């Protein structure tokens, strides 16, 4: 029994998580070939996907490339645009308008050479923000320019980038590609029941129109309901609602007024009285949503706030309200079932962490799913400790944005109450008051957010850092060269990079050359 092989995987759920995971597994296992491990996906024809989740992380480029999807096909079929970071608007103060960028590109990898101490010493110039001192990308994004040119290879950027995409169209693209190119078997049916074996592992899923389906391994991608891991196996949910206070979102899709409306080159995130509004530009519409705490604002008021933000264009448009379960499962992998996506964990979408953790989970599953059942327990332990770490660090990073805010509304005051800040984050913030952010603060290989992300947010939010021993930073000349290089690149790239729409039009017409 224990030396039995794992020959089949059943993914339940066909949202972003289900299709990304099924496609990745099938690609990795070569499921299209005769005799390979089979990957099957069951999706309900009746239960819609969550329908949001349209901002990604640069990891998506590697993911799409691994799956063998052409970048032009992806851009075209998902109304996708290039995302060069997030612009945080009014996060620092309630009264004083202001903004900063969390970017994907820095002139120097700070784990190799950290420019921050020299920026603090004023060596980049007096009135230059940290982001503008270490990266050309903020200016490029503000101008609405693309991160690459038509002469770049697919997935290659002049500047690092991610995407904004239409979640529904993305699942559709993956669904077709996974079936046609990667050998994923598809079943359209509702799972009515999940039966357990004597040892508590999943024995089968019972469907309405496709009978009983069995597999050697199951992946729960059923969204917030967590049908397999949560409901059937009874793995508990650890809420972090006391740390991250936002528990609802209201969203509206806003068509662009014209086909040539300029496109934002980064996600906008604008602080509001009881949360924040995301604003993501696709080629045909914006996706806009207010993530808020229902303890601090009524649902009606939240919707009104969102409508005011959008302006007159919102009048004829429908709003959709979503409840968010914020937290994570006690285990992400239990016996012969792993959960990926909303069924595993969710935190407010402030840093687009959900999809990249789906990519990460699918990658790890593809690598770690053992060929023999006897090796399942070890894989389970590794997976669980890895993703517990990643989710806790994600929660810390999201919390950092709130902990640094000086906004005065009750929601914001509550959100930065010291008692609600995880100790791991408090320790880091304490040390950063007098010493630089260090590569050793992020020593884990699977740190979800890199050192540079923390620096963009810390310095962007005006974190007070007074380096206790300024004598240590003696490479001012080298730093000066980097700062100059950024200014030179900023000028040069403004000339070279096309506006987003112009590049997209060329991509639609010509495509990228494969080379």
């Amino acid at each position, binding site marked *: 029994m224990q030396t039995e092989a794992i020959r089949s995987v059943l993914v339940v759920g066909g949202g972003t998580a289900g299709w990304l995971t099924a496609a990745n597994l099938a690609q990795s296992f070569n499921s299209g070939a005769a005799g390979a491990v089979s990957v099957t996906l069951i999706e309900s024809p009746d239960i819609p996907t969550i329908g949001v989740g349209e901002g990604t992380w640069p990891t998506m480029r590697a993911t799409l490339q691994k799956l063998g999807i052409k970048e032009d096909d992806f851009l075209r079929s998902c109304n996708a645009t290039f995302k060069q970071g997030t612009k945080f608007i009014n996060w620092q103060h309630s009264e004083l308008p202001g903004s900063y960028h969390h970017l994907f590109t820095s002139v120097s990898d700070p784990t190799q050479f950290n420019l921050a101490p020299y920026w603090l010493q004023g060596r980049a110039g007096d009135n230059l923000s940290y982001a503008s001192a270490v990266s050309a990308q903020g200016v490029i994004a503000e101008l609405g320019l693309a991160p690459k*040119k*038509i*002469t*770049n290879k697919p997935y290659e950027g002049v500047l690092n980038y991610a995407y904004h995409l239409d979640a529904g169209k993305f699942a559709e693209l993956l669904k077709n590609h996974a079936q046609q190119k990667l050998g994923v078997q598809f079943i359209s049916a509702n799972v009515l029941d999940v039966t357990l074996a004597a040892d508590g592992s999943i024995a089968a899923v019972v469907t309405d129109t496709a009978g009983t389906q069995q597999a050697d391994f199951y992946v729960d991608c059923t969204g917030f309901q967590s049908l397999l891991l949560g409901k059937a196996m009874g793995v508990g949910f650890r809420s972090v609602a006391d740390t991250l206070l936002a528990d609802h979102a209201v969203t509206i899709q806003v068509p662009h007024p014209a086909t040539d409306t300029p496109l934002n080159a980064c996600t906008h995130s604008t602080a509001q009285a009881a949360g924040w509004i995301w604003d993501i530009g696709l080629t045909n519409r914006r996706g806009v949503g207010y993530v808020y705490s229902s303890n601090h604002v009524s649902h009606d008021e939240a919707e009104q706030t969102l409508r005011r933000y959008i302006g007159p264009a919102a009048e004829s448009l429908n709003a959709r309200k979503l409840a968010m379960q914020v937290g994570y499962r006690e285990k992400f992998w239990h016996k012969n079932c792993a959960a990926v996506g909303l069924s595993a964990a969710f935190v407010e979408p402030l840093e687009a962490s959900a999809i990249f953790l789906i990519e990460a989970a699918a990658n790890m599953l593809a690598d770690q799913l053992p060929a023999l059942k006897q090796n399942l327990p070890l894989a389970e332990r590794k997976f669980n400790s890895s993703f517990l770490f990643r989710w806790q660090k994600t929660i810390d990073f999201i919390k950092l944005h709130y902990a640094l805010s000086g906004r005065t509304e009750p929601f914001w005051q509550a959100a930065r109450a010291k008692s609600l800040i995880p100790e791991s984050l408090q320790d880091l913030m304490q040390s950063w008051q007098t010493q630089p952010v260090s590569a050793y603060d992020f020593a884990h290989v699977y740190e979800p957010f890199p050192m540079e992300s923390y620096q963009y947010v810390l310095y962007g939010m005006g974190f007070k850092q007074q380096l206790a021993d300024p004598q240590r930073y003696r490479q001012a000349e080298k730093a000066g060269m980097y700062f100059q290089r950024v200014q030179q690149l900023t000028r040069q790239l403004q000339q070279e990079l096309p506006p987003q729409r112009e590049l997209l039009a*060329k991509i639609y*017409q*010509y*495509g*990228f*050359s*494969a*080379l």
Partner: protein
Amino acid sequence: MTNIVALDSQQHQQHKLREDPLFPHIASAHILPLEVTEFAAAAVSFPIVFVKDSATGQFRACALTGLQPGQNLYWQPSGWQAAYIPLAVRNYPLLAVQPEAQSGDYIIAVDADSPLFNQHSGEVLFAADKGTAYLQQRARSAIALAQSSALTQQFIARLLELELLVARTLTLTPKGAEPYDLTGLYGINEQRLAQLTAEQWLSLRANNGLLAVHAVLMSMSQLPLLVGRLAQ
């Protein structure tokens, strides 16, 4: 700068077309477009390379005539220094464009900013509202070029399919100056060529593709000669 407009028997009734064997318009062009039908003839004069068109990102074939932008080592005030003159150079300032792709119909256009196109000297283009014999002959060669250009695109598409193109960086060390890289050039990957299956190999024969591949490879022997011109 170029200013491409369609030739029009009314509007351009008074215009003439002059030929200038010195080709001043390419005095500082470091690459010149080539069509696949010219490769064999061009290979004895220049290295044949592939570059991406900066406006479309698509590959096109070119003669490499200089080692940095703005430099044409075959161009001299006294006359063109190579045995071969690319068709596009000879046709200039005329070109044929297809208003609708694949329609087979062409219109003849001209770079109206070229001094070769003027009202003072050269051959008459229109007489009694009709193209002169001279214009018809020039138009025919412009159309022939446009037709070869479609073949070139097919050839390049085939090279890409077979993964036969590879990026090449030329590192140049001019005497008494810092070495620099000439980037953005692509050539034929010989290793990959050697690995083609018999079937892939034969598929290249269509439209004389094999000849073209060999012409490109042979043309690489022009590279040291080009670099040598720099020293002169």
